[in-house]
């Protein structure tokens, strides 16, 4: 009986480690039954693209957060954080995805994921931004309050261009390179500058959205660290 228990245990370990080995190259997601087929298809296709990325280098900050700039690293990172996908309106008519901390390791997608015509890398940056929020061990990387006043590089108030709402005082900034805005920016910048099998449009898109997201990192030192990591001077 004792030897049988040992055999069962060994077999379980072998099958699980074989699965884990395979799991590093694949994403395992359990979709809620009410997730629209088109949304599921789009998400899997987008992650398939993510999984195909190749590069021979990464910036130091990227290495620290994600590892290499390649598909295996990206899917492994994602699969350690997100196990389940549900649908929700995320409390906003413009949201694409969100995380609700009481539901561990779950990401909630809205219909905007397929209905809004975002570039693919922009969609993925939102997904990876939200995946970062699943990290309970890091306080879900809650956002910092944007400073008051909150100005852009041109000295203008940062505000919603549609509603005019000021961003100052809102919980919509990061004071570390490693929060959700920071880490998504690092991912975008590295895809934009180092992905060797991304076409010119994808690289241009990644750089465009990276520069936009960088504006949400408001701590002077964090910002300087990221700009140095990206090899850009303070003019951009």
């Amino acid at each position: 009986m004792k030897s049988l228990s040992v055999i069962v245990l060994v077999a379980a370990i072998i099958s699980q480690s074989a699965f884990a080995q395979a799991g590093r190259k694949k994403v395992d997601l359990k979709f809620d039954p009410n997730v629209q087929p088109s949304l599921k298809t789009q998400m899997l296709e987008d992650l398939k693209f993510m999984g195909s990325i190749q590069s021979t280098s990464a910036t130091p900050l990227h290495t620290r957060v994600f590892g290499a700039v390649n598909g295996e690293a990206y899917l492994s990172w994602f699969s350690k954080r997100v196990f389940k996908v549900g649908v929700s309106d995320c409390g906003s008519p413009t949201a694409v995805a969100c995380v609700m901390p009481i539901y561990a390791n779950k990401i909630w997608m809205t219909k905007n994921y397929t209905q809004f015509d975002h570039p693919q890398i922009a969609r993925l940056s939102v997904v990876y931004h939200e995946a970062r929020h699943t990290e309970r061990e890091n306080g879900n990387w809650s956002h910092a309050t944007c400073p008051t006043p909150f100005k852009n590089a041109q000295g203008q108030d940062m505000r919603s261009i549609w509603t005019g709402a000021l961003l100052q005082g809102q919980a919509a900034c990061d004071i570390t390179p490693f929060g959700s805005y920071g880490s998504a920016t690092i991912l975008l910048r590295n895809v934009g500058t180092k992905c060797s099998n991304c076409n010119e449009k994808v690289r241009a898109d990644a750089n465009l959205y990276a520069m936009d997201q960088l504006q949400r990192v408001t701590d002077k030192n964090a910002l300087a660290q990221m700009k140095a990591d990206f090899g850009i001077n303070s003019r951009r």
Partner: protein
Amino acid sequence: MKKIVATTVLLGIAGIGVWVFKTRTPVSLSADPAPLEPLSSATPDIGSAEATPAEAEESKTAETQSNSIQRSLKAPDQRKFLILEEIFRTKNDNDPRFDTDLKELSPDLKRALREKYAATAPEKRNERGTVVFLIARSMCLPSSEQAQQVQDLEFLKSVLQEKPCLSLKDCSKDAPAPTEEEVHVAGITETTANYPQLTALRQSLECYRKAMGQTPPQKWLADQIIELLQSARGSRNQKVADEAQMILRYLGKS
């Protein structure tokens, strides 16, 4: 006997492990583009499975217009146009044919792309921005002739002069009242809302660099791009005006 039982149990557990693994939802790493297919209303369109009747009607109209544009082209350009249509349908932006088949664009194909842009719903920000990207990029190729560059610049100018898209759901209608979550995601949403214009500006900057980096520099094209950026500074779209100003400042031309 004990050994036989133990081996059987071991194999059984391993088999269960494999079965559990296979029933998950894997994502393969393969990213080969799907084979080219002609436009067809039967072709599945990611994202449209739950379309409302109005959306389905709009989609059908757009398809009819695209078919008409496609038929106005000769065979090699038709093929390129179909490639672009396929990329829009699959939403796979990283199709390698962007940098091969869709790099050199004939004047006729550019004419078709401009028509495509005009026929594309304003809410299709990525599709519109992609057309802008392709035209702006081809404008800068060494093989591009000045007469064609004039047309390309006019197109970019018209894009930059468009009124702002007020929301991704409906460009003509104001965005809903802000929520806490809306502020959280506003950056990405607003960049996408201005994606065609920001692409026009960024690609203009890239083109300027290339033009000035050539031996001898393409001075005429570089000057035209500066003029384009300067006119964009007066845009009624504040995001466009700010971005144009930032680029001009970066180039030391403000």
